């Protein structure tokens, strides 16, 4: 291959064909989705404040349809771009090493980083189920449009639903623990002092978020969260 | 053979300026009509190819490695000298010139050396501009250190990887020209012969090391920058691939070979550990700044070093050379180590080693200070030997490191074959009988960046060169010879491997033409080499074919050439009845065992002419004149 085949250095082509730009898009969309996950977790933890709190919060979210649908569309775009760039990079990467090693050891990478391509699609599949379960309600045995609290409590009282949810959250949190540190690197930030801190923070985030998400189904299963009518 | 050194007349300070003014120039528009071949891509070849490409010549550059960046210049550790006087400590171009002529034991050409000292200044500027990350002081200025016993701090360095960084600078400049289309790079391609048409160098024959294809390349001039021939000793600090094939085959086509016996031995290398040893590793001689060299007082003392009390140790350098002590020049330190080992006082399992002990320095300065200065070297030593130099003394032994001899060139770096230029370690021009530390990098880059761009133009502009392409009958004839040699080597299928011959040659050379030489040993060595060569061509086993990647075949051709060059080195050493620099003839020493030069009879460069397959080589002499630095005996007492 000759370098003469190169396009002029400052053609706009390089902006979108570049693997680094693609990876940056993945990082930026990841960062936005990470923010969403944070807000979503904090919102849902209101379930522990009792039915009124969370149901009022949910009603507020749904009160202005323009904002609701705008946010939903935005999230969909983010997820779409995140997945699209992933698929593009996966294609490039699978072409880069067609013959596998007979023996390959991993020296430095974390399991989380090596399983992004597995955790990602699983999370995507889970999101679809999660929407049908707790947003659309078609996969929920006793779905109510207004009583989010009961949806959560009854939804999670089915043990295998909770189990699947826990697995999905474990994957999401490992995905985040690599993603958080990786996005800084992809966007060109690496600092001898701060980067180790970011890594620690990323691991902590993974664990804390998992604890947060896991607390809801576990509380529902164990009876710590009573059904709405029992409280009355 | 007539040797015209083309040294300019007039005062030495203006000689290079005047010579450049007198040179003919090639019209800018005509440069691209000239084809130039550069063989070798190290500091000399890489910088030459990049600079000539930039000037507009059509350049083809060849290297046997997979990339030009692998050339052995990359392994130089210490630094590069330049007469910048940034330290305000009294350095000057004249002082660097003086030190180099004296260090070379008065066997180098004054005018060449002066030009080298002048160019040293430009080299640093050029390399800094290329982005070579030289060491800096906190104020942002370039840092210097003193090196190899010099009394001024004139050595520029990039950690312990100065050669690497300078080479990468030249390599990047070369790749920029490849990208621009002015240089075409031929990697994994080995030059196997030189093509001469009407008495001028007009091309080369190469072998593609991947496909085995024998190819012809025509040009208006050929530049060889293929490095030194230290691997004739088998064990040396050179890379395994470093070889003499290009210069040797050019020698057989008519290029005189000058001072082949001038080889440099480096005192601080890691000793041999077994028969399987494939190369020797050098450690920077800066180690001698804080390490003390000793051996047991009594021969055959097999106690571990910690059990030998102070009064049963012999710090022989401090004893023999009280004023320089452990910092005597390379050749003196090496010979002294050999002497104590010959007395049976060497250490380690093989008895070929001396201690380099840091215990006193660690006590005095603390382990941290030593680690800061030599941490990477200690680590390297530990990696190779498995021993910890912080708790037990290092073992060191001298090893072949550099060859001052090489193809004879005139002031314009042209060999005795018109149109063939020789740069860097491959030529003989600047270091005389001994090279000073941190001067090899300087010479390679001076030749490539700042000499050849002018002298090549002068040759092209002042000679009428007829059009030549690879269809000329001379190419076919030379190709046939190359093919015949390869076929002959492959057809022997004898009993011994190529490297077994190489090892045996190396041992003959090391024993007889190494640190100490004498007439008897050299005479015997010549006969042994002749017999070994004869056996080689009857009993060597080169497996495989010539039609693909065959590393044994590559090596077989190189060893065949070493078997011839080794003999010439012994002949040169035998003919030089004096001791000077790296050449120590045991018959010619003072009562105290120091080298004794004979300026009356041997103040010349010996330029050997190839005599033919079974004929003796012919010695031509280029007398050396010393108008500026007056020959004196070196003393380090």
């Amino acid at each position, binding site marked *: *291959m000759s370098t003469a*085949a*190169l396009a*002029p*250095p*400052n053609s*706009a082509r390089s902006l979108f*064909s570049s*693997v*680094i730009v693609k990876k*940056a898009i993945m990082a930026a969309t990841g960062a936005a989705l990470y923010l969403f996950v944070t807000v979503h977790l904090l919102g849902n933890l209101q379930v522990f404040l009792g039915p009124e709190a969370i149901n009022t919060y949910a009603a507020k979210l749904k009160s202005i349809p323009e904002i609701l649908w705008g946010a939903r569309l935005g999230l969909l775009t983010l997820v779409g771009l995140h997945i699209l760039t992933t698929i593009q990079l996966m294609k*490039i*990467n699978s072409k*880069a*090493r067609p013959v596998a*090693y*007979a*023996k390959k050891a991993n*020296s*430095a990478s974390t399991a989380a*980083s090596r399983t992004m391509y597995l955790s990602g699609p699983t999370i995507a599949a889970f999101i679809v189920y999660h929407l049908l379960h707790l947003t659309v309600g078609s996969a929920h045995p006793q779905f109510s449009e207004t009583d989010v609290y009961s949806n959560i409590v009854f939804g999670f009282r089915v043990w295998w639903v909770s189990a699947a949810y826990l697995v999905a959250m474990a994957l999401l949190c490992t995905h985040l623990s690599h993603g958080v540190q*990786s996005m800084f*690197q992809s966007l*060109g930030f690496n600092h001898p002092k701060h*980067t180790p801190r970011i890594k620690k923070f990323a691991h902590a985030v993974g664990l804390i978020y998992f604890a947060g998400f896991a607390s809801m189904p576990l509380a529902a299963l164990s009876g710590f969260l009573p059904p709405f009518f029992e409280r009355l | 053979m007539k040797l015209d050194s083309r040294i300019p007349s007039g005062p030495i300070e203006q000689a290079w300026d005047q010579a450049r003014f007198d040179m003919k120039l090639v019209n800018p528009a005509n440069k691209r009509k000239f084809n130039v071949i550069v063989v070798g891509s190290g500091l000399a070849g890489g*910088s030459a190819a990049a*600079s000539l490409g930039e000037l507009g010549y059509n350049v083809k550059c060849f290297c046997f*490695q997979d*990339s030009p960046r*692998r050339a052995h210049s*990359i*392994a130089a550790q210490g630094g590069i000298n330049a007469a*910048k006087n940034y330290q305000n400590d009294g350095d000057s171009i004249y002082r660097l010139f003086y030190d180099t002529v004296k260090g070379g034991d008065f066997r180098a050409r004054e005018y060449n050396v002066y030009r080298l000292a002048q160019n040293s200044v*430009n080299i640093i*500027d050029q390399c*800094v501009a*290329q*982005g070579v990350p*030289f060491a800096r*002081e906190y104020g942002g*200025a370039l840092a210097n250190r003193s090196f190899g016993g010099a009394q001024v701090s004139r050595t520029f360095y990039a950690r312990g990887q100065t050669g*690497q*960084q300078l080479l990468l600078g030249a*390599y*990047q*400049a070369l*790749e*920029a020209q490849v990208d621009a289309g002015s240089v075409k790079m031929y990697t994994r391609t080995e030059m196997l012969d030189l093509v001469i048409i009407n008495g001028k160098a007009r091309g080369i024959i190469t072998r593609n090391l991947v496909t085995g294809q024998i190819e012809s390349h025509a040009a208006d001039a050929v530049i060889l920058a293929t490095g030194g021939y230290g691997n004739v000793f088998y064990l040396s600090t050179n*890379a*395994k691939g470093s070889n003499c094939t290009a210069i040797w085959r050019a020698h057989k086509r008519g290029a005189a070979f000058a001072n082949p016996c001038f080889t440099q031995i480096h005192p601080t290398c890691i000793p041999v550990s077994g028969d*399987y*040893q494939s190369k020797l590793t050098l450690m920077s001689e800066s180690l001698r700044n804080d390490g003390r060299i000793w051996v047991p007082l009594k021969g055959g003392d097999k106690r571990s070093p910690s059990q030998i009390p102070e009064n049963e140790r012999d710090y022989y350098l401090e004893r023999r050379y009280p004023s320089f002590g452990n910092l005597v020049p390379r050749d003196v330190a090496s010979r002294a180590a050999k002497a104590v080992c010959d007395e049976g006082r060497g250490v380690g399992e093989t008895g070929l080693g001396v201690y380099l002990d840091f215990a006193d320095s660690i006590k005095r300065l603390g382990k941290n200070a030593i680690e800061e200065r030599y941490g990477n070297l200690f680590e390297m030593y530990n*990696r190779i030997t*498995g021993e910890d130099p912080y708790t037990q003394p290092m073992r060191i032994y001298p090893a072949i490191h550099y060859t001052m001899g090489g193809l004879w060139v005139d002031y314009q770096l042209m060999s005795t074959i018109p149109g063939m230029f020789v740069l860097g370690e491959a030529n003989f021009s600047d270091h005389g009988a001994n090279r000073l530390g941190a001067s090899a990098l300087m010479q390679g880059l001076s030749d490539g960046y*700042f000499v050849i761009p002018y002298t090549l133009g002068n040759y092209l502009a002042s000679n009428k060169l007829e059009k030549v392409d690879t269809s000329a009958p001379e190419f076919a004839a030379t190709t046939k010879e190359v093919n015949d040699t390869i076929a002959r080597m492959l057809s022997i299928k004898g009993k011994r491997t190529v*490297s077994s011959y190489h090892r045996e040659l190396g041992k003959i050379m090391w024993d007889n033409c190494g640190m100490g030489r004498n007439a008897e040993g050299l005479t015997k060595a010549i006969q042994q080499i002749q017999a070994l060569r004869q056996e080689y061509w009857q009993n060597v086993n080169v*497996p495989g074919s010539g039609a693909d*990647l065959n*590393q*044994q075949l590559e090596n077989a051709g190189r060893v065949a050439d070493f078997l011839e060059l080794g003999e010439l080195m012994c002949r040169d050493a035998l003919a030089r009845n004096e001791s000077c620099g790296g050449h120590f003839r045991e018959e010619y020493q003072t009562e105290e065992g120091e080298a004794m030069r004979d300026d009356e009879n041997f103040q010349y460069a010996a330029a050997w002419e190839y005599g033919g397959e079974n004929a003796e080589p012919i010695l031509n002499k280029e007398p050396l004149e010393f108008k500026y630095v007056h020959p004196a005996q070196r003393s380090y007492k």
Partner: protein
Amino acid sequence: MNLTLHVWRQANAAAPGRMERYDARNVSEDMSFLEMLDVVNEQLIAESKEPIAFEHDCREGICGSCGFMVNGVAHGPQRGTTVCQLHMRHFKDGEELYLEPWRATAFPVLKDLVVDRGALDRIIAAGGYVSVRTGSAPDGNAISVPKEAADISMDAAACIGCGACVAACPNAAAALFTGAKISHLGTLPQGQAERSRRALRMVEQLSLEDFGACTNIGECEAACPKQIPIEMIARMNHDHLKAAWQTRGARKSGGGE
């Protein structure tokens, strides 16, 4: 000690390859890994078999010629060490070792353990240099360079171009190699004029050579015999993104040289 070797044998780029088994007997622990292979090869030649082809030159860890996988690790188990500097004392008697060439589309196998790394040269040719005409440079001390910048630059410039980072990367990316060169030149004042062009062209060449894309997992850093940190990849990302952003939409204005 005695060892069992499983070595990838392949006659040439077009031929299929396979793993073959060899015995390495009476290996001294003071041998380097390549010296052990030398001895195996002498044995193979004596048995009229073809010796194993592997690349090597300086054998002191600086030229970057050598390198293959030893039990799935580029350059073998010792960190910060090329395979030529790896000594046999790190192995145990009776161990089985798998030797495989670097594997990447960009590094076609030429023979046995020898691969073609010309792609790395072409990445440098695409912009890994500072253009300066021979003889035109200002005085070396004319531009001062802060020591910190010189040190970071040197950390990056220590790259020996062996290709271990590509071999170790699950995506066969050459991000650490390219990042090291972009960082080496980009941190020095001398490298500023071409900084953005360099970051664009070298990264574009990466794709043309069919290297993979970096996923920030750090295997390259662990495999690098010169221990170059992945911080250098972040520097490349920074330079590239900045340059891409600055030149966006420059298509119509007819960019180029």
